[in-house]
């Protein structure tokens, strides 16, 4: 997928002015944050559970190579084939090799964010095969010319039902439906046909279980069950960081994931798929795992390694004031919101994405809801340090910071400067004591006034009081 994160600010501006999107964002915010809060309120020890989730994920990452080896052995023993993708391009190459090996013509796909990193669908189509997304949100984006996803859990959340109704009407050439239920039924009728005629199913993988060699899939629509169960071949694609040691660990994380994502105690469907079918069993004929690196080992070796604990619940963006204002598209790549502000610079290059970690108030509304306790603002700060070191941001920002630190280290100069600034702002503010336009602070005064100061700094007043015989301090 093209990385457009460098254009963050301009795109954010467009989204702020998009009235339809703004209405949709208000709806989304109410939905997710409120449902999560309700789920928390009904749970006896969510903090304890978060700590358990953090511990499982961190322990696994600390010995990731070992767990990957165990997973490969277990999965192979179950009759699956484990393949490794070092780069995003490797994902596409491996999928096409599998497809050609088994004479596949049509592929159904359930949700996989990792495959967005390599634009897998378009590579499949370019090779002359057919691919159909079966997650409703992903399907909507696919038939809208592969519009990028805007959210981890609900990739098409930025769309209203009216927009979807228009799209279905246009693409399916059916009568325009009004209600959500009718729209879902229409999508279901279209998709059912594809499940039955597809030769291969592609899924993501919420967790890969090392002890059993299984993949765990969490969905609400049941599409993963059909997409991975009906065709002959199943390919599960996910990042190497998605390993968990045991089924019990997966169960603990399953208590966290839906609650954090949608406020559900458990998702409507949880599939645990292990290997190919044996004598007299159900299941697929051929099963492949594609475990993707694509920058993950570099993250593991970096100062932001904690980001790899992410289980893709979306809670950080649901609670992010910036995301709530602009949605997911301005982040410019696969992963939006606070976690995207870490992963995008790491996977796609800080030079291509440095506005993302900067575009945060560091309020930590994300960190306190993250089910695996990723300290997102701390990680954003670390990437800001790298941005500063590598001189990636505009020179004026860097110069301003440097100047501030330099002056603030010299108390006499600092005192004199602030006296001048206080007076200038006082005069600029006029009788009303408010500044509506401030040339060097245009970013501020575009949407807010600046309350003007009194004109004398505290240190001046304090010194005057001492001179006048106030209590010595």
């Amino acid at each position, binding site marked *: 997928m093209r990385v457009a994160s460098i254009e963050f*600010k301009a795109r*954010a*501006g467009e989204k*702020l002015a998009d009235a339809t999107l703004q209405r949709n964002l208000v709806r989304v915010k109410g939905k997710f944050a409120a449902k999560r809060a309700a789920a928390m309120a009904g749970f006896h020890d969510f903090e304890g559970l978060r700590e358990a989730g953090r511990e499982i994920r961190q322990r696994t990452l600390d010995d990731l190579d070992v767990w990957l080896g165990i997973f490969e052995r277990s999965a192979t023993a179950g009759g699956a084939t484990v393949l490794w993708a070092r780069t995003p391009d490797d994902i596409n190459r491996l999928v096409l090799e599998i497809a050609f090996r088994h004479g596949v013509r049509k592929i159904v796909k359930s949700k996989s964010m990792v495959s967005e990193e390599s634009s897998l669908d378009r590579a499949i189509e370019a090779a002359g095969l057919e691919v159909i997304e079966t997650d409703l949100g992903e399907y909507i984006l696919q038939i809208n010319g592969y519009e990028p996803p805007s959210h981890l859990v609900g990739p098409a959340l930025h769309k209203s039902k009216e927009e979807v109704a228009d799209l279905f009407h246009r693409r399916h050439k059916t009568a325009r439906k009004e209600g959500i239920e009718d729209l879902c039924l229409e999508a279901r009728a279209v998709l059912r046909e594809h499940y039955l005629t597809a030769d291969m199913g592609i899924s993501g993988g919420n967790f890969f279980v090392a002890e059993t060699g299984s993949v765990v899939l969490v969905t609400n629509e049941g599409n993963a069950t059909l997409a991975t169960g009906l065709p002959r071949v199943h390919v599960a694609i996910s990042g190497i960081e998605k390993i968990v040691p045991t089924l019990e660990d997966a169960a603990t994380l399953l208590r966290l994931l839906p609650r954090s994502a949608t406020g559900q105690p458990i998702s409507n469907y949880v599939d645990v798929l292990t290997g190919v079918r044996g004598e007299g069993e159900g299941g697929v004929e051929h099963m492949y795992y594609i475990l993707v690196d694509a920058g993950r080992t570099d993250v593991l070796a970096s100062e932001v390694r904690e980001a790899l604990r992410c289980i893709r619940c979306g809670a950080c963006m649901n609670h992010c*004031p*910036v995301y*709530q*204002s*602009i949605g997911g598209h301005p982040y410019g790549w696969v992963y939006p919101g606070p976690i995207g502000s870490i992963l995008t610079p790491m996977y796609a290059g800080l030079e291509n994405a440095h506005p993302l970690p*900067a*575009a945060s*108030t*560091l*309020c*930590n*509304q994300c*960190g306190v809801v993250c089910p695996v306790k990723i300290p997102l603002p701390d990680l954003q*700060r670390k990437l*800001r*340090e*790298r*941005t*500063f*070191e590598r001189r990636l941001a505009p020179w004026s*920002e860097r110069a301003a*910071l*440097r100047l*501030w*630190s*330099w*002056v*603030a*280290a010299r*108390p006499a100069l*600092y005192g004199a400067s*602030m006296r001048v600034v*206080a007076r200038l*702002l006082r005069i600029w503010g006029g009788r009303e004591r408010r500044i*509506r336009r401030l040339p060097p*602070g*245009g*970013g*501020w*005064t*575009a*949407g*807010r*006034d*600046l*309350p003007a*100061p*009194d004109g*004398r*700094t*505290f*240190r001046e*007043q*304090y*010194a005057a009081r001492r001179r006048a015989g106030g209590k010595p*301090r």
Partner: protein
Amino acid sequence: MRVGLVVTCLVDLMRPGIGWAAVDLLERAGAEVVVPATQTCCGQPGWNGGDRAGAAALARKLIAEFEGCDWIVAPSGSCVGMIRVHYPTLLADDATWSERARSAAARTRELTQFLVDELGFDAVPGRHDGTVTYHDCCAGLRELGVKSQPRRLLAKVSGLELTEMAEPESCCGFGGAFSVKFGEIAAHIAERKCAQIAETGAGAVVMGDLGCMLNVEGRLRRRGDASTRVLHVAEVLAGRED
């Protein structure tokens, strides 16, 4: 009990009355208040902006200035968060300063936190006739756990009635340099906060960080609200609202 007051750079420049209110409250609570004359900025802009070296220099400066104090107190959750939470990280690898940073961190408290948790003080002189609503600034709330203390003290202000807004804990959009660099987004976030403040019908919104105050007041005025006052909790408690 020597209490060093970190005035903060914003209070020094933009609203010195908050500093005086803090001095007043601390003295009433029985502290000997010291205001080191050479203090400037705690280093937050550098720390949050990626200039680690610049931030570290200012951190060392502040630590040295307040070393003779039993406590270090500031009327700002974010500056206290900087000293209490971030200084030890910032100076962790500095052999000569890491211990001094940890000691300073351990002695540092946000103003209302200090008054309530350390001194059990509640004889506040303030008087405020009318309804106010309280905004929990992010750093104070999520880095320091300041939540009940300001409300406890506000409850002692005669005439004051507190009405909570829908989401007192949601960010106002300030975020330091963010509020200038991404001003449009910051103003949009502030607008949500202002709408919630307006819904309460309160005559004033009270909070504990001047950066957030400027952001909220700036947006209130721009959206045409000339009357809702934006007050620092210290001003209200000390009865120095002008």
